[in-house]
């Protein structure tokens, strides 16, 4: 029996970048084949070639034994290849159902749309995914997690023979991921071949059959998922061992309170949230999708209006009505949605890194010290290992993970006393992730205050000195960090949905 997909010796060049160097990859029917590698290794590029978005510059591609070179996404679809892109590509002004069926709308005569059928079919797909989402909701009004679910639903609706998932879980929390895995297993049973790209190592053992590892645009090897230790795979990816230190929560003693939030409120989204963080502390924020963590962060930062609440920095009440006030008060916020809120994607890496700190580089008459911007940017590129041909590359041409690192660099350069990181490691590879953890710890050790919002419980547990848990706009409790706290403890608080629940633990 022939393989579903076979790619051999694939080459791809971009201006100044040799993105794929004779890469090989194959996929069997009914298998989940993970594609792993650091940020910028070339995973997305390889899959874009398979799905007809890029054309290969060399090598051979066969689908079910037939030579194929899909030139457009449509041709790839016709060959039975579906893809969930790493970057969301949805039409924000259209409804969920309209997005899912774009190009395949149920029609009546004369090009008239059958909107009822459209919504009904969407509802059916959602039901099969065990997803509660209104088919008529505007996609632009959804959180990214839900948008990601829409992307998944869209790919599923194609009933492809090959389904490529490029970091489908980057924006999802554990419960959602579990649901996705149910779907993947079902598809697998139906004989669909699935390419699975993820930076979450724990997912490998759960669903994948084989793992192919890439590094720097090169093929490293393919191993069985069940019989290869995770550490071996990581070593293949980064070319060295990555060892995770367990968390040692420092004793902060009487280090002063640097950020205090009292009675933060906004409608249903934020209900009476109060907490405080000490200098040198890392406070983790955990919760399910829609718990309101992002809302709290944005309200503190002044990105959204708030109905009420008092914010004090270093004991002084500050009035924050816009992000500029927050930055002035020494608060930085790294958004979870880098494409819309984090990056000026048409500008260079250099300018994006300097974006929040332009005032550092202003000389006489508002003239910028370009050389200094460049050298600063280069030092961050080196420090964070941002894979880019130069600091003058446009950000939109970087791989997803490297874009994320650019946003991090922006806030590191700004050197705020209080840094709020919303899903800082979304789409970042294991190696880089552990570097970022080290970085956050170093920042905390220097006396900075760090708030980390993350949907990955292991990450929260690995990083946080204390853990704040939210549910439906309320802060349901604050747990101590370290070994005493388990994932179950967090989940318990994250699902306390009744309004009558008391806040457990202490808010300093």
């Amino acid at each position, binding site marked *: 029996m022939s393989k579903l997909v076979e790619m051999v010796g694939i080459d791809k060049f971009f201006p100044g970048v040799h993105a794929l160097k004779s890469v090989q990859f194959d996929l069997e029917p009914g298998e989940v084949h993970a594609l792993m590698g650091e940020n910028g290794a070339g995973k997305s590029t390889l899959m874009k070639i398979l799905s007809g978005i890029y054309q290969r510059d060399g090598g051979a591609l066969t689908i079910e034994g037939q030579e194929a070179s899909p030139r*457009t996404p449509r041709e790839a679809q016709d060959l039975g290849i579906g893809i969930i892109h790493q970057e969301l590509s949805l039409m924000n002004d259209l409804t969920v159902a*309209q997005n899912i069926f774009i*190009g395949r709308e149920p029609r009546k005569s004369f090009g008239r749309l059958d909107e009822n059928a459209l919504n009904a079919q969407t509802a059916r797909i959602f039901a099969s995914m065990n997803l*509660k989402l209104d088919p*008529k909701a505007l996609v632009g009004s959804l959180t990214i997690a839900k948008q990601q679910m829409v992307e998944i639903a869209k790919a599923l609706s194609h009933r492809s023979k090959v389904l490529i998932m490029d970091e489908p879980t980057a924006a999802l929390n554990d419960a959602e991921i579990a649901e996705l895995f149910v779907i993947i297993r079902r598809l697998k049973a139906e004989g669909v071949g699935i390419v699975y790209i993820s930076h979450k190592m724990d997912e490998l053992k759960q669903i994948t059959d084989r793992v192919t590892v890439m590094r720097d645009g090169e093929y490293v090897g393919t191993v069985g998922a069940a019989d290869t230790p995770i550490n071996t795979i990581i070593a293949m990816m980064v070319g060295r061992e990555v060892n995770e230190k367990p968390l040692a929560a420092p004793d902060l003693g009487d280090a002063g309170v640097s950020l205090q939030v009292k009675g933060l409120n906004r409608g249903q989204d934020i209900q009476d949230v109060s907490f405080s963080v000490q200098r040198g502390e890392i406070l983790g924020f955990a919760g399910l999708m829609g718990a309101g963590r992002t809302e709290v962060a944005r309200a503190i930062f002044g990105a959204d209006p708030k109905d009420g609440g008092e914010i004090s920095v270093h004991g002084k009440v500050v009035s924050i009505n816009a992000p500029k006030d927050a930055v002035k008060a020494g608060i930085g916020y790294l958004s979870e949605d880098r494409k819309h809120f984090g990056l000026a994607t048409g500008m260079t890496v250099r300018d994006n890194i300097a974006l929040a700190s332009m005032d550092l580089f202003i000389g006489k008459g508002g003239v910028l010290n370009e050389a200094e911007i460049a050298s600063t940017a280069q030092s961050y590129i080196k420090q964070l290992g941002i894979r880019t041909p130069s600091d003058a590359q446009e950000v939109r041409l970087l791989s997803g993970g490297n874009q994320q690192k650019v946003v991090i660099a922006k806030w590191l350069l700004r050197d705020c006393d209080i840094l709020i990181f919303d899903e800082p490691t979304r789409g970042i590879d294991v190696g880089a992730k552990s570097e970022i953890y080290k970085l956050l710890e170093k920042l905390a050790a220097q006396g900075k205050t760090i708030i980390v919002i993350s949907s990955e419980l292991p990450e929260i547990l690995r990083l946080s000195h204390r853990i704040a848990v939210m549910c*439906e706009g309320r802060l349901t409790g604050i747990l101590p960090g370290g070994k005493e706290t388990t994932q179950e403890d967090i989940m318990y608080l994250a699902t306390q949905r009744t309004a009558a629940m008391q806040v457990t633990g202490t808010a300093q």
Partner: protein
Amino acid sequence: MTSTTDVEKKKPFANLADSGAYQKLLAFASLIVLLIGFSIASPNFMQTSNMIAILQATSVNGVLAVAATLVIITGGIDLSVGTLMTFCAVIAGVVLTYMGMPLLLGVAAAIASGAFCGLCSGTFVAKMKIPPFIATLGMMLILKGLSLVISGTRPIYFNDTPGFDQISRGSLIGEVVPAFPIPNGVLILFLVAIAASYILGRTVLGRYTFALGSNEEAVRLSGVNTDAWKMRVYALAGAICGIGGILIASRLNSAQPALGLGYELEAIAAVVIGGTSLSGGRGTILGTLIGALIMAVLTNGLRVLSVAQEWQTVVTGAIIILAVYADMVRRKKAS
């Protein structure tokens, strides 16, 4: 894939309120304020005949604005609506007066040539990837010149085509309801608007119009032949400009080849006042109609008040800004 939050449950109601009658009435707010204001300022303003005059003044600009709305929703812009209208009027003149063909053929020729020119703009934009601003600016100039060339820089009169001026000036409604002789031109505007609304809301073409403006790349990645659909939208807009050409020719009972420059800005202004975003993806025909009416009421009202011309311009500018500002504030409150 987790459980429903109450947020989602609330959503349908929010939606209902959003598109409810209350909301729709509010959208007219600026228009109604203007109407009331002018009625108080001048006793002559609120007469049936003047209301009809305002509607009639809206008809041509309204039709062009509907055409512009379609293109703008795709994220483009159409600067050629005014001269295309003139070009189509001239074509009708050539077919009817110079060639002596029957009325229907002239109308068909005007609409067909509008669709063809729209298709050309669409091809420049979709296939040749020329920015819509330039493609339609080029078309605007080409059509302006061609109108003069074809007509021999001379107006073409429709005196030999009896009934031609009735297309716009006659009143079918007036025959039924003599007290309210709404001219056919206005009727045609409403028919065009209803048709365009239907196409936008209920057909595949409409769906892709919004989709293109919302995220063209995503549509393309979904395997849709975006180029072909975009060309169809431009062609449809062109055909509507053709209808506009018939309307103006019938109103003037002649095709004036030098007319049409400057009409594009008025049409686009009506679209934007009506709440359609120039960045595409969002917009309604109803809004555009209201926008066109606001412009017509404003000009008419100031003229009826005999405000000095130079001040008319100043006041128009200021009120346009205020009307849109009021609309922004209203929407912000609503959301």
